[in-house]
């Protein structure tokens, strides 16, 4: 019957073990997801002094949550035909206050990032990289140029790839087909060319 006593002892001590570990626990705190990108702002500047800059924004404040993203202006941008615009991308994490500029983080790791731009086939627009290249002389694409053609309707998609293979065929020229890597951003804006 000694073992019964031993058993009782062990059982009770383990109960004590488990019950005391339950106390004084703090509630789990909110985690600030530092890598979150909530907002992409695209600023286009036309040639000459007559044209002022236009901006379009994509904002999804809850990240992977189920909240809907908002595009402002919702109708998209209207661009002039046969015109060259200089374009600049700004990435923000607006869950922080003040909003954190993620573009600088991308620029700091320029060799690990690249933006790609595509237009739907209905839209007459071409893209070219501008701005500073990364340390290997490959494009990053925070700055770029949009050249519009004849009047048309469609959309453009901006993709940011993390760790793409920049030396793969076509990648330097802005074709993401062989780039691999993972997509950190994929945003589509409606565009009208008049």
């Amino acid at each position, binding site marked *: 019957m*000694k*073992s019964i006593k031993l058993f009782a002892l062990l059982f009770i001590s383990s109960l004590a073990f488990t019950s005391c570990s339950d106390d004084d626990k703090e509630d*789990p705190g909110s985690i600030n997801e530092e890598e979150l990108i*909530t907002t992409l702002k695209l600023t286009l500047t036309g040639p000459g002094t007559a044209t002022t800059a236009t901006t379009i924004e994509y904002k999804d404040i809850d990240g992977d949550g189920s909240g809907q993203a908002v595009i402002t202006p919702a109708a998209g941008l209207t661009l002039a035909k046969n015109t060259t615009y200089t374009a600049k991308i700004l990435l923000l994490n607006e869950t922080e206050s003040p909003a954190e500029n993620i573009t600088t983080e991308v620029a700091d790791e320029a060799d690990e990032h690249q933006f790609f731009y595509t237009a739907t086939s209905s839209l007459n627009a071409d893209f070219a990289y501008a701005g500073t290249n990364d340390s290997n002389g490959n494009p990053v694409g925070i700055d770029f140029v949009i050249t519009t053609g004849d009047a048309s309707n469609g959309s453009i998609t901006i993709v940011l790839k993390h760790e793409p293979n920049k030396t793969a065929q076509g990648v330097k020229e802005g074709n993401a*087909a062989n780039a691999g890597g*993972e997509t950190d951003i*994929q945003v589509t804006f409606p565009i009208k060319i008049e």
Partner: protein
Amino acid sequence: MKSKNIFLIVMLTLFFIEANSQNCSYTFTGVVEDFHDKSTIVGATIYIKSLNKYTTTDVEGKFSINGLCSGKVTVQISHIACETKTLTVEISKNVFKIFNLEHHIEELDEVNVKGNVLKKTKTSQETLLKTKTLENFSDASLGDAIKEVSGVSSINTGNNIVKPVINGLHSSRILTSINGVRLQDQDWGIEHAPNIDINAAGSISVIKGANALEYGGDAIGGVIIINPARTIKKDTLQGKFIISQQTNGRLSSFSTSLNKTYETGWFVNGQTSFRRAGDFEAANYNLTNTGLKTYGFSTNGGFKGFDKGFDIYYSYLSNEIGILRSSHIGNSADLVNAINNGEPLVVNEFSYDINNPKQEVKHQLVKAKLYKRLKGLGVFSLQYDFQHNNRLEFDIRRGNRNSLPATDLTLKNHAVKADMKFDANSNTTYKIGISGGYQNNFPDPRTRVRRLIPDYDKYNAGIYAISEFRFNGFLLSTGLRYDYNHIDSKKRYLKTRWNSLNYNQDFSDIIINEDSDEFLTNPKFNYHNLSASAGLLIDLNSENSILLNYGLSSRAPNPSELFSDGLHHSASRIELGNLRIQPEKSHRLSSTYTYVNDKVNFSIEGFYNFINDFIYMEPTATENTIRGSFVVWSHIQTDANLFGVDTTIKYQFSDNFSISNKSSLLKGIDVTRNRPLIDIPPFKTVSTLQFIKPEWNNFQTTLQSKFNARQNEFPNNNFTTFVAISGQDELVDISTPPNAFHLLNFTSGVDLNLFKTKIGLQFSVDNIFNTSYRNYLNRLRFYADEIGRNFKIQIKINY
């Protein structure tokens, strides 16, 4: 008991003895020895079937049968607590033979699982893998080894993360017990391989279905029982080394163990192993970042006597596993790109480096157990165990955060159990037991990534009773078990997610706090589960037996099924738990027919598993985020039926040659939706031709053919997504299974005896033709082929 049965058979067959008019005068003598320590075995039965002659060994293990005619006779050697051996002996003169029996000193404490190499259950569909088989997998994983059992397959993430699948079910539906301790290591995740060092196992029992109630009542798929090497009550010191080297992945593995036992019953064992590999190779390219580094050790010691004993066990295992670089992708468009590309997008030179994405898992286990035999009653035993599991998962991250894990889960588990086995009457035994446990999960917020699995405390208590009755060649076993589970979690929900799941209607009472974008909730759930089992073994005669089995089991939802909430990178999908999930319940009917004689060993196992409220994941929505679109997979419940047949046959067509085959066919149906279940292993058949020549240093060579059919029954979860490169919506084919494949493997080996040291050498080639193929049950099948040809050498030293 076996010898009793044989005696009965002998008595029966005596009636049918035919008169033999030949003049036969040869004598057949021999000795029966223990396979392991060469001690003689007293009282073993030697039975010549064709002549119905039998005798038993004397105190020196010797036997003699005279009056034999020339020709071949079939001899069956059996002993209580030994594997029965059947072989053919050529009689052309007086013959002397030494027989080795796999002798297991009859467990003084049958209740003590440790050391008992006999099967764990007598009326279940159980298969035992012995040390010799397991040693071939010294450089592989548990999941690889138990695929030796017909009807067992695996669900993989690449080639290093291998999770066992028993009759189509896996993860939380399989219970893994190591050294009598239920493994608690976040087994809900498909990419969470069991933290078991195969080198620490002496034998492994695989039980299909939930018929081993003393281990748990929720093992709807089955139970895997890992036993350490047995201890012999004798003054010995035994050691073992296994070293192996592979070409594929340039894998090196090393394992050693040392066992010291004393006549008095005291024992101490130690074991350690190390394994390292770099990038593995598919048939046509390197699988970049698929290396691994794993090491572990275990030690146990104690006292084993007839009326009492105890043991203490500790084990440590560390796994660092690289995940194929190309499988770390972003949105659904990346998935289309990967699938359409046909080859991994990142292929680099061979390297031993393990970069992100990767996993680092450390598992520790401490166990203490004691038992005491109470006179005229039975054996009482008591056990306590503690497990500590830390899982780190590293993703490819921005801004120098690569060294910071994206997942950091620590699971602590305490368990106590006590049981009493009433075995005073050998025809009727009962066992009752109780168990209790406490578990705590802590997701470390240092990851700066929202918690995939929340903080929780889990309590459980269980009580069971099992019994075994023997009568007239029948063996009936029955069991009943009740389990109570309580889970108390603290979880933060994004308000948008909370509302989209309609929790605001049903669960508003569990919100305990809120900030601008999140609710802090305190979900508490209680689950009551009842399980039962019944099995009947009918020995028709010495060659035929039938097993009938029924199992009722129910399983409470795991934390992942309730709470998971986040993006799964290698699947490019958002996975959501469901607070409304209720336990699933399974009714499993099965039957086995076995035929054994000296040449043929055949068994066919059939089963039908009806599962009510089967918990599974299904695509339920598409969500657009700034990263593009993702499919949302949610946990839901349905009624499912699984049924299938597993066969095993071995035919010994001469002394040296044998051929064997293992096949399994399985179907899984979602009855509610009338469509196939996902991830059901396709038809598989494995045939082996073996040549053994004991005279040539135990030379043996085998040629194995493995055929996996294509799974033609699968649910269609395909969807379309916008792909920027082409500027249009494209089909994402995540459903279509890969083609059938056929592989050939070759193994050859010899055993050399140098003084008291036994050296085994083995050479093998897997995938001889370097076939490129993909496996339906590999989560990385969208990205890369399985591994190609592999040459392997293994040296085993027993001293």
